């Protein structure tokens, strides 16, 4: 199945649709023989990976697009075998160290060492270094980040790291300073709409500009989601009309559902139901911070201004706790319990005023 997102992904730095200035700079960076480690960050769906793939193509030619999948095994100091999937070409290797949870440090150290110790076979006409792409660097444990710092310095001669993160606030300063940080901002809604128009034109279908705007708005400035939405719209109903339904992601609907459960009744029993729903979300892989954001957004719709402040500050507190703690569910539940208490008090007071 070839999705529009993949089919129409720009493969050359010069063909990118937005942030064109940055694209030129990136091209210049690569055209000089060498470049430093990169830390590419930005929100989801802004085009981080697209730009990196373009960059690699610029570096090594079309060979980087011949990908193969491999499972690598590592042994932890406690003799536990861990497996991790890697996607690699002849010139680069990409890995998601957070897949192995708390053992990410071992993966980073061994993987980078493995890659760095083997030189490029044919260095004439090619670059002298390989590239290691690490995903979700901001979710790495502190241990792994410190290991990364050391590794980065040691193997700088034979490999370059490209780190991908959503936000650099959780990347330790030592790594930040060793990398050239490149921020990829999310595209604006008009930019998304124009990309949608472009893609539709290539697919030779007609999209009403109202619909394009609506998709752009409901996609949260996430281009990938916007393109997927657009294709889903086309599958659901063609020809496209300006007022047709834009399908939302399942998890957003589920979060909204959870929020309405919270608002319907404030009791420990309801909290138990909410907890089951939160469990379900977490187990299916929705990141807890997105659940937090989604819940807050839905809940504050039913609050007055004073309460909004209060709820938002509680949410911020528990979200921070969640980052520092181990179990997201504890903090999500604490937030829901706090909201229930505040909301119940508010409802009782307003009822009291009415009489």
């Amino acid at each position, binding site marked *: *199945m070839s*999705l529009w997102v*993949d089919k129409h992904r720009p493969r050359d730095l010069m063909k990118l649709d937005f942030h064109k200035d940055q694209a030129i700079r990136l091209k210049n960076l690569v055209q000089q023989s060498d470049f430093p480690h990169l830390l590419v960050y930005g929100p*989801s*769906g802004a085009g981080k*990976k697209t730009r990196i793939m373009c960059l690699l193509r610029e570096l090594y030619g079309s060979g980087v697009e011949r*990908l*193969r*999948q491999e499972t690598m095994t590592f042994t932890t100091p406690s003799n536990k075998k861990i497996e991790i*999937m890697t*996607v690699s070409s002849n010139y680069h290797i990409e890995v*998601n160290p957070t*897949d192995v949870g708390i053992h990410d440090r071992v993966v980073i150290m061994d993987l980078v060492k493995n890659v760095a110790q083997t030189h490029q076979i044919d260095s004439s006409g090619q670059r002298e270094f390989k590239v290691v792409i690490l*995903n*979700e660097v901001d979710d790495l444990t502190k241990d792994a980040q410190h290991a990364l710092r050391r590794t980065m310095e040691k193997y700088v001669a034979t490999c370059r790291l490209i780190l991908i993160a959503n936000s650099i606030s959780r990347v330790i300063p030592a790594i930040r300073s060793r990398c050239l940080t490149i921020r990829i901002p999310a595209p604006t809604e008009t930019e998304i709409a124009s990309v949608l128009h472009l893609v539709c034109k290539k697919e030779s279908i007609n999209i009403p500009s109202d619909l394009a705007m609506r998709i752009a708005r409901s996609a949260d400035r*996430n281009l*990938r*989601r916007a393109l*997927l*939405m657009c*294709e*889903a719209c086309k*599958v*659901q109903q063609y020809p496209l009309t300006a007022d047709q339904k834009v*399908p*939302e*992601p*399942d*998890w957003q609907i589920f979060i909204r559902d959870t929020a309405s459960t919270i608002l319907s009744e*404030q009791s*420990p*029993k309801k*909290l*138990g139901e909410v*907890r089951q729903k939160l469990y379900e979300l*977490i*187990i*299916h*892989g*929705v*990141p807890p911070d*997105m659940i937090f954001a989604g819940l807050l957004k839905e809940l504050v719709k039913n609050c007055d201004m004073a309460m909004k402040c209060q709820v938002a500050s509680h949410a911020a507190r*528990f979200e921070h*706790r969640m980052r*520092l*703690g*181990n*179990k997201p*569910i*504890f*903090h999500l*539940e*604490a937030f*829901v*319990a*706090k909201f*229930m*208490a505040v909301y*119940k*008090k508010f409802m009782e007071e307003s009822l009291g005023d009415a009489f």
Partner: protein
Amino acid sequence: MSSIQKVRKWCNFEFDENEPQKKNIKNPKQSENMLLEEKVAISKIEKSDYGHGTVNINDKNWMKTFDPVIVEDLAIHNKKIQEVEEWLKSCAGKNQSDILLMTGPVGSGKTITISILAAKHNIKVTEWITPLDIDMPSDYGDYEFKEKQSTKFLEFIIKAANFTSLLDNNDRKLVIVEDFPNTFIRTPSEFTDVLQQYKYRAKSPIVFICSETHSDTKNTALNLFTPSLKEQFHIHHIMFNSISTTGLKFALKRVSEIISKKHKAVYNVPTADMIDCVVNSSAGDVRSAVLNLHFACLKGSNMDLETSIVIEKETKSKTKKKKNSSKFLSLGKDQTVNILHGVGRVLNPKVAFTEKGKQLTHSPKDVIEQFLSQPSSFVNFLEENYLPHFSCSDHTDKAASALSDADFMLAEWREKMCQEYGLYTAVAGIMLANKAPISAWNPVRGPKNMKVQYPSPQELRLDVNYLYKGKVLVMDYQTYSKIIGCNSSELNNISIHL
């Protein structure tokens, strides 16, 4: 080891003072009256051994004076004893290598049951004890060749099963293994090989005795004796429970009888109160109960100290918990609280009114003391189970906040105190937040396994080497690829039909 064992077969060591007793029992007398006679005979022997009937604590085997000698002395439930006895009878004289596995908590009388029953049925028992194997370099600095532990083990058990000792002429034998060689815990497959060999070559039954522990990792019974292994070798499994209160009382009464008959010089005769204390504090462990009783009854210079502790504890606990009138005597062993029990104490806080005002029956400090070694798992249990006990959303808010704080503190593993503080925050937070608890029966559930399952690219019908994984697939692709995928496949079907 085998060489040591050979020596053992040839001569009796002096410290093995059980030997005369055993010989006595081994006389083939079966009727009850005879046994009673025997008991008298034994006590006579004991008396002659100890001169004036006093226990010499310096004697290595002083504990043995209180060991049960006949089946009726056992504090274990009759049904269990019968079960073991039936097994023994069933495999007696068959010349077959039947295998029995006995599991149960520590001090539930597994070993003593089998040895007493073996004595009753005139069966010679040989036990494997894992030898020390420290590598000592020879004069030239190289290491001696040593046999593998498992080979030694196999050789020993087969020899013990097939060959009779020269000292006694009975031909019914039983091998006991309580002390498993380490190598089996590391590589369970070796154990399977050993069992296979044993089954094939040996001519006597073998008994494996495993103590159960709370943690799964150290549970030999679970790790070694997998269900498939049990099936393969037709292993009979008898599970022992911890000793009941009546059983404990019975055993202690017997001990106190022995004391009052023979050892008045060393011990004070224990009072009924004292026995109650010991029973309550031992949590079904008969061995530690006897030890505690021994400690509590000792005469001597520190006698006053002991009794004063007992009295103090008693008065304290009486004010604390009048209804159950249970008294905790913290002698040697702390009162054990398992995790479910602890969870119950936290979730149903009981408030007692004393002179100082309101007080919790179980103070948070006492509760956390029991779980300091595994703070996060205890907090997980609390989190999973606290909700049904709350009636008001204000209270849940406080409890949930406390749990959130606790998780934050427990995450700081570098600071040792944080673990304790985190646990305390959770326990005290929940106990104090619940002002109006619901008292209903709520089964305690284990914490959920929160392993995230990301969809695989194949599930979403994407290319295997796909650029994105994990979160991105869930957040963006899942919904839409379902819509796009199913519709396009429908379209394909239609086009095929056309």
